[in-house]
């Protein structure tokens, strides 16, 4: 016998967790913040997180949102802490790289909105390749 003994498909159970009211609101907010379809965000969470982290996501998200308000601007708009530590959707290296790029663009005189939206585009590409 080679295969694992008890492994089974957890997709339906994971989806059941994501249908609660708090999770729904969180997915909605993340999707509108990053400019992704909600379906993609759900899919990403189901593929990458274990079930316990999924259950705890709304609490972590609320805490991360509070911390986000306190941080300085390019990090705040990109949600640097929120998306790497609180809701770990993006690796810290990629986030550092993105924040660096956005800061570079700001230094070269690019308007804030444009710089942030190009940073978010990079994050989007990491989530939906």
């Amino acid at each position: 016998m080679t295969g694992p003994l008890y492994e089974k498909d957890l997709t339906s159970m994971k989806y059941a967790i994501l249908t609660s009211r708090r999770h729904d609101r969180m997915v909605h907010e993340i999707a509108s913040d990053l400019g992704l379809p909600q379906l993609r965000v759900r899919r990403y969470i189901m593929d990458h997180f274990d079930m316990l982290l999924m259950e705890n996501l709304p609490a972590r998200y609320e805490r991360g949102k509070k911390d986000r308000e306190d941080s300085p601007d390019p990090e705040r708009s990109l949600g640097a802490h929120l998306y790497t530590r609180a809701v770990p959707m993006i690796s810290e290296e990629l986030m550092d790289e993105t924040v660096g790029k956005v800061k570079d663009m700001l230094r070269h005189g690019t308007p804030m909105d444009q710089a942030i939206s190009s940073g978010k585009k990079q994050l989007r590409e990491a989530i939906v390749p």
Partner: protein
Amino acid sequence: MTLLQSLKNIVRSKSIHVAYVDVGSCNGCDIEVLACLAPRYDIEQYGIYVHNNPREADVLLVIGAYTPGWEEKLQSLWQKIPDPKVAIAIGNCPISGCLFNRPHTLVDPPVSKHIPIAAQVPGCPPRPTEILSAILSVAPTVFKDFEVRK
């Protein structure tokens, strides 16, 4: 049945090993089963030993209303218990689903659809003494006609 076998059966029915499995309850029945271990009820003076290992058990206490996570797994757990074996349903949940058996629920009671149940102890939750007396009343019947297959 040989005399030796029937003697063995009588002796074995005085020493019952119990395992419990929670298939989706509110935890109330679990702690009442645990309370049976307390020196006040002292389950071990009746020759019952709770160690929660299905591979050594004679009696399986089933608690809870059967959630989808247990599909196939409860069956395989039941198969791991060596013969002779019985299952006792503790609480309302494995019997009828109790409060959880309503529209939009995820549970799939009764548990007797999935594994054979020998006795039922209703209550939400039943008292430890009731659980104890249920195990004691089932114990003699487990080994009654048991013969080792050749």
